[in-house]
């Protein structure tokens, strides 16, 4: 398993470099100009000099390796420097946002906690709700509970977050006035009251994102449980005199989790994508909002870096899904 993991990690390096190249070329080919938002009064020759200052006068085969160098060498060096007090990155140029002129990673570092709180929490909540729903729905197939679960999943699948989000705001913020509609990032949690405020402002974005996760994962869980409940080994377990809880939660669940774990792991990157919209609605200034603003401002280094980080996340989650698959299913051994 270890050699397999190492091999997969090494193989992911060329994959990621290729992905980086594709993203870079897409941005290169896309219309739009980082100078477009500059005042029209700036003379063309000054604009040219500003363009050169951003490095945009160079062709892509110069700029792409430079980006790779900054992303893979300078930024880690800088991180090492700030952690251990060394000076590897001294005098080297970090990745700088076109818009804010501040290092891209500093901005990402500021925005990441909000996104992780909202997105991470919603995913955990969604999965924790989905698994029992899926298990009970399958065990009591066609019961009232199963029908209700199916109904809720259909809603979760078919109602997009930009609708359910606004709906929740209208109900709970505008009509009832229970929850704030804007996520306050400046809130510092240091007492019971601020903790409760944080909790209250998280409820709606978390619920919107969790609804989608719950809908998907509970369906997969249900289908997988149904597949396994009719297997011969379940009858064997019953014939051994095992109680229903052992039969379902030990024998069937372990087998049913094998495909579901893949779905859960591969869903993590996509929920970051879904958060882009949810963050806009609830005014969470997280990574999603940062990406949207960067796209609007043609902030190529920022867009490139955030998109690439998402790609890294996808590749890593694929690897983690495969490893978990091997751990759960003894029939799959990679070495």
């Amino acid at each position, binding site marked *: 398993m270890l050699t397999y993991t190492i091999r997969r990690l090494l193989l992911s390096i060329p994959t990621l470099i290729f992905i980086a190249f594709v993203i870079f070329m897409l941005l290169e080919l896309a219309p739009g100009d980082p100078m477009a938002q500059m005042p029209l009064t700036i003379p063309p020759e000054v604009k040219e000099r500003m363009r050169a200052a951003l490095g945009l006068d160079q062709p892509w085969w110069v700029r792409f390796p430079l980006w790779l160098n900054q992303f893979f060498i300078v930024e880690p060096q800088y991180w090492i420097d700030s952690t251990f007090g060394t000076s590897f990155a001294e005098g080297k140029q970090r990745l700088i946002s076109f818009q804010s002129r501040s290092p891209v990673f500093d901005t990402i570092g500021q925005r990441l906690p909000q996104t992780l709180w909202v997105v991470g929490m919603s995913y955990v909540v969604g999965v924790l709700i989905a698994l029992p729903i899926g298990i009970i729905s399958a065990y009591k197939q066609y019961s009232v509970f199963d029908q209700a679960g199916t109904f809720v999943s259909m809603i979760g699948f078919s109602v997009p977050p930009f609708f359910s989000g606004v709906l929740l705001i209208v109900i709970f913020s505008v009509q009832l006035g229970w929850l704030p509609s804007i996520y306050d990032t400046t809130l510092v949690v240091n007492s019971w009251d601020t903790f409760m405020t944080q909790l209250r402002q998280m409820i709606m974005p978390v619920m919107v994102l969790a609804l989608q996760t719950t809908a998907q994962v509970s369906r997969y869980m249900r289908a997988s449980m149904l597949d396994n409940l009719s*297997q*011969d080994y379940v*009858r064997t377990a019953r014939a051994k005199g*095992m109680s229903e809880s*052992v039969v379902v939660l030990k024998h069937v669940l372990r087998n049913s989790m094998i495909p579901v774990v893949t779905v859960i792991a591969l869903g993590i990157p996509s929920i970051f994508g879904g958060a882009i919209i949810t963050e806009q609605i609830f005014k969470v200034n997280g990574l999603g909002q940062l990406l949207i603003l960067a796209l609007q401002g043609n902030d190529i280094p920022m867009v490139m870096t955030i998109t690439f980080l998402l790609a890294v996340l996808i590749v890593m989650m694929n690897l983690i899904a495969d490893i978990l698959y091997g751990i759960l299913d003894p029939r799959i051994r990679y070495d």
Partner: protein
Amino acid sequence: MPDGAMPVLDVRDLKTVFRTRGGEVHAVNDVSFSLKAGELLGVVGESGSGKSVTMMSLLGLLPSPPADVRHGTVTFEGQDLLHVSPETLRSVRGGKIGFVFQDPMTSLNPVYPVGFQIMEPLRKHMGLNKREATVRAQELLELVGIPDAKRRLDDYPHQFSGGMRQRVMIAIALACDPKVLIADEPTTALDVTIQAQILELMKELRDKLGMAVIWITHDLGVIAGIADRVMVMYAGQVVEHAPVHELFSHPQHPYTRALLKTIPTITGKRAARLTIIEGQPPIMTSPPNACPFRDRCDVAFDRCARENPPRYDLGDGHDAACFYDARTGGPRDA
């Protein structure tokens, strides 16, 4: 085998119905039989004759719905298994009655080591701790003839061959020294050499442990070699029931005779073709009110279409459900 001993398992008038979208299917119709200690009862019949469903009904192993055990009594150790609490039933399953299923390839849980799967009933029914259960599981694997048992406890089912997996299944069924072992076509999925090994093993274990065995099969050759008594089933009913030698030498029911004719022989003149029984067994969409075999029967007469024959006692533990008396060659008096 001990004759006249108290039966360990006594089944009376068992009836199981499946409720399907197309109506009810009467899978088991008033089946009665009993089993004495140390006895090996063979159950034969075509696919769909209700052999497996009968045995699974005894222990409540059929999924309900669609299955519905309508009536009957299953007396085991003074209790009616159809009317005990789920907890009591679970203590019987795997503890006092072991079950071996047909398909060894899918009957073991693929994600747990076989040792764990053998130890589960040991820990539940016999209250052994982990260390004791490991020792016993190793003994069991040795008993069923798996070499290098200690090391193989940690192996997963996919690391065993079909025959070895069936041995593991037998080890699980035998784990708690059951009084009764129900083997549902345990050798059907296996090739002939492995089949012979398993048969030998079962005979050996039966003699060694003194348990009663119900052996379900559609292979009359297997029955001839292993059973003490045979029960022939057709359309969810017992059509003939006799000691094994009696059944093979004096079959009374036309279905049994037809079945015996289908056995290919390697001695004597080579038959041009294999013998078959023409037609299909009926799907019982209503309780039987006529003989279910009459359409395929060569001695059927008008009464067979009006009434379902009861099991006529022919003496010496032999009975047959047929209006035609094969001994006299004429209709039986009611």
